[in-house]
């Protein structure tokens, strides 16, 4: 899909490391040292216990499609990038994340095994994690 068409995420001090890691080809999660929760999207304080003692954890980048939908038409998105597969991918570490599965809509269903890829955007030091069906 057209990389230039994607909105550029807002990079903040709280999320900078996540986006920089993505630009470096790594998918990061956060893990709470106090209660053990592994979570996404990144937040400075654990959303279960409010501990600020949270680590960055590199995800394996594999998981399965928890759910998906296909946009056949969408204002504000280039027509040649449609249909667009949007999905929740359940990572093998646990968290479900909103993403795209970059493939023909016929290749995806609930439960499809997927692996991460990174798409460049119009900003330095930022890339967006998306997924593709895993190699057999």
């Amino acid at each position, binding site marked *: 899909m057209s990389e230039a068409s*994607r*909105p550029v995420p807002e990079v903040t001090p709280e999320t900078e490391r996540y986006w920089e890691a993505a630009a470096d080809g790594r998918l990061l999660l956060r893990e709470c040292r106090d209660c053990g929760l592994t979570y996404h999207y990144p937040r400075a304080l654990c959303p279960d216990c409010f501990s600020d003692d949270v680590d960055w954890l590199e995800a394996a980048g594999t998981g399965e499609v928890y759910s998906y939908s*296909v946009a056949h038409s969408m204002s504000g998105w280039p027509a040649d990038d449609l249909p667009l597969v949007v999905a929740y991918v359940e990572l093998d570490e646990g*968290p479900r*994340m909103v993403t795209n599965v970059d493939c023909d809509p016929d290749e995806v269903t609930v439960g499809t095994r997927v692996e991460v890829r990174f798409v460049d955007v119009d900003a330095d030091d930022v890339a967006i994690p998306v997924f593709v069906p895993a190699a057999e």
Partner: protein
Amino acid sequence: MASEEPVYIAGAYEHPTREAPDKSTMQLHAEVAKGALEDAGLEKDDVDAYFTAGVPEHGSGLSPLVAADYLGLDPSYADTTDYGGSSYVSHVGHAASAIRDGKCDVALITLAGRPRSRGQATGSGVRGLQTMQDSFERVYGVTNVTMYGMAAQRHMHEHGTTSAQLAEIRAAASHHAQYNEHAMYQEPVSVEDVLESRVVADPLHLLDCCVISDGGGALLVVSEDVRSTLERSCVEVLGHGEAIGHQDAGRIDLSKTAADQSGARAFEEAGLGPEHVDYASIYDSFTITVLEALEDLGFCAKGDGGKFVEGGTLRAPDGELPFNTDGGGLCSNHPANRGGMTKVIEAVRQLRGEATDEVQVDADVALAHGTGGSIGTRHGAATLVLGGEDR
């Protein structure tokens, strides 16, 4: 334990317009406020509390001040809770609490909007990034309709729900809309019609989605002291509950909504259960919104919603649980892309015996449920249990 003092809805008014190119949104707020006052038999000066949520086109949190200024209100109590479409259902509950606390006696709630005239992109457009979460969601091109599509897809996966079952919901709403002279779409549609409409976001078809309309509505919630002065039949607020559902740190469950909590809280306060409900107004941004809410509110077991809606269950007047007898957001009206207000209004009509003749239910207890935001990410859920005056 909640105070026992009864609180009532004394006035309810739905703007008849569905497209208002020559009126301002604030004008619609004023017209619905006036309509609700006339319905109740109250005067503008009687209003001592004001409730409204944001006006989407303002894009700021100060819309309630703009509205109070325009309307010339001088309230002693104000509440600007904004959960999207569920806001106006929650406002009724908040007004009841404020009245029981002695803060006010006549609470005015208004909603208005002109998304149709403004050509406002609704469910299918990419929006700009505003919230922190948008950088993790909207960068993927997700929209309201694909989010609800994902909920439907997951519900189908877990429970075997079918597109034909979702279509039953639209078909029932359209059956009711044919009797509503103000409904945007009055033509009855069949399950097959829904399935043959184009797919907007798998597995949702165009006819699984609500209308885009201009319009608005208003409610007046009053104390027992005020009600005793009125000749108008009033509706008692028996129970109210709210909840917020969200990403839950990555544990989101797309097959359910926070209606399981808001409904349980409302029924507990009312001392009633789903089995006592004669009529239900269920927020219907999409057919899946209704299906999940029916399960979560306890009208059937989780996962049985598809079977529950088959066979005319939702059709007035003879179905087991007549719903959205005005045609709902799917067929009649969805002002400001926020459907909670019209849900309460139709429940009030049913309990007063003022629904359209063909769909009037013999109703003593009604439920109104609002869902705001997106069940695919984060949403408000607000539930009211309402009782007729002579029940």
